[in-house]
């Protein structure tokens, strides 16, 4: 049982990290980025090219993170420009459709140009015992990175002036403007952050399973589901939902079988949305 829960937490942390970048952009800008998985895939590809070019793994990962952040900035400057000109549901719909278009362009081009590429990061060494359960070193490193990332995000949002400014925009855009916070600047910042998180997702995922050229859509869908279950715009909700869904998934996988476990995961997500449309920790609309 402990093994399943630990497995679930490892998976859940991954889910949570997936959702974090998506939920930030939604909470702040009211835009859903369906090309989120593709941002991760592009970053992963850049890391593989860097490694192929002879750059050691750690700097290569750094290049990947910078690429992700740059992609976020690029999105903010181009495709999301017309999106921000709209309000409410029209904004969400337009952002969804435009980024879906971007996702297709990226997916199509990458799978045409580099059909069999993928990123795998091997973490050496045998399994490590935790609470008497042998765990793969790769997934432990990935989980550790995720926890550090979440902790620093929490600190950033709770403790720094910049983080508070971002939260003030999420809370009340008009009010934030009145006290001198520029919402557009905050949005740009959050998109850069979200791009970096997408790249981080790619890197930590690559330590557990290969990140393939065509894997972007799957990343986006899981990020979307976890985001919605946790509550759109809620950062801690993303983490909670990720861990819950991860544990559900690994317990269902061991007791019922892998094919039904995914269905149970999906049904659990659907039920949460139906019972609590605002998500686990979301603000009631």
């Amino acid at each position, binding site marked *: 049982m402990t093994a399943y829960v630990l497995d679930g937490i490892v998976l859940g942390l991954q889910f949570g990290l997936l959702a974090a970048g998506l939920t930030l952009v939604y909470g702040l800008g009211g835009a859903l980025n369906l090309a989120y998985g593709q941002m991760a895939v592009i970053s992963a590809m850049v890391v593989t090219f860097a490694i192929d070019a002879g750059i050691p793994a750690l700097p290569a990962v750094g290049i990947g993170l910078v690429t992700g952040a740059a992609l976020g900035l690029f999105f903010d400057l181009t495709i999301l420009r017309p999106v921000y000109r709209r309000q409410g549901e029209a904004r969400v719909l337009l952002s969804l459709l435009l980024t879906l278009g971007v996702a297709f362009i990226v997916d199509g081009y990458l799978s045409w140009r580099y059909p069999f590429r993928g990123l795998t990061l091997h973490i050496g060494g045998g399994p490590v015992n935790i609470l008497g359960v042998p765990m793969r070193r790769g997934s432990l490193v990935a989980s550790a990175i995720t926890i550090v990332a979440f902790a620093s995000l929490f600190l950033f949002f709770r403790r720094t002036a910049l983080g508070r400014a971002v939260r003030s925009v999420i809370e009340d855009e008009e009010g934030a403007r009145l006290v001198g916070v520029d919402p557009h600047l905050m949005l740009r910042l959050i998109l850069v952050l979200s791009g970096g998180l997408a790249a981080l997702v790619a890197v930590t995922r690559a330590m557990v399973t290969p990140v393939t050229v065509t894997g972007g859509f799957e990343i986006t869908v899981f990020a979307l589901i976890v985001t919605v279950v946790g509550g759109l715009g809620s950062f801690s909700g993303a983490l909670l939902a990720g861990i819950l869904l991860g544990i559900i998934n690994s317990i269902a996988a061991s007791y019922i079988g892998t094919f039904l476990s995914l269905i149970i995961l999906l049904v659990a997500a659907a039920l949460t*949305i139906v019972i609590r449309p605002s998500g686990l920790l979301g603000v009631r609309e």
Partner: protein
Amino acid sequence: MSDRFAMTTGTSLVGGAERRASRSLPALFLPVLGVGAVLAPVPLWLGDSRVLMGVALLGLAFACYTIGFNVIFGSTGQLFLCVGALAGVGGYSSAILADRFGMPVMVSILLGAVGASLVGGLLSWIAVRRSLGVIFTGIVTLIFSLTFQNLLLGRGDLTGGESGFLISSRADLFLGELKPAYYVMLALVLIFLLIHAILRRSHLGWGFRALRDNEVAAELAGVDVARYRVYAALIGAAMLGLAGATYAFSRGRISPTTFGFAQVDVVVVVMLAFGGIGTLLGPILGAVVFTIIDEILIDFGQLRLVAHGALIIILFLWIQRGLIPTLGSFFRSARFHPRRKRWRR
């Protein structure tokens, strides 16, 4: 969180461009007859090429899907991202009923359509009861799509899993030949069009338009918004299921990708957006144009995805209302103010 969005109701991307539906009888049948007259000679022109006829058949199936999606999304603003899954419910359940349980093909196709209709109605009922917005409806239906795909893969004993399902009970069926299948599919397109045209001028259509333009006002004016939404979903999903089942039997082989999300839903959204969301003929125009574009690009393989993506972006950035409303307003302004238009330019 979304208080600042509360000012706007409804979505400006959906509808708004649609004129009042005509009440006269010829206006009801003319567009349907026109579409029939244009699409009926296609097999004569394509000749005996099995490949091209297959493409044309798929195009018609997509026209059916797009009409069904239009009835659900275009009329009542419910973003159903499970077009492929609902068509798949029709396709797979009819194929399983006919093949594994020995039911007559026609009965099983009808049962497939009824099944899809009930599933669609249930999804809509849940969304309406919990008053889920456009995005949440989209995500719940997307989750349904994924669940359906996983069920297909998981119950390989019934569905043939990833490699697909060879429908053997259609051996002596006229649907097995490409030309009859084309005309059956075309008949479906025309019937769906007619149903949609009648819907638009019936009291249901009035309710749809009212609730889509302003939900609160419609509710106050006595339109039972919840009921009308479920009606739209029932009708639209029945169309999807019927089309999916018919297509399954005319092809003789179905696999999860026949009804996949990327293969059906995305394409249907693009077709509808291209033709014009909420319009009568938009789905047909979108399906025909998109099928032709896709066939021209067939040699590019994966690069076709790039074209799809670019098309989506261009569509939603520049001709947001879709081709039919844009052309319509162009012709109307040209007809009523010919001189002024010329001089202003």
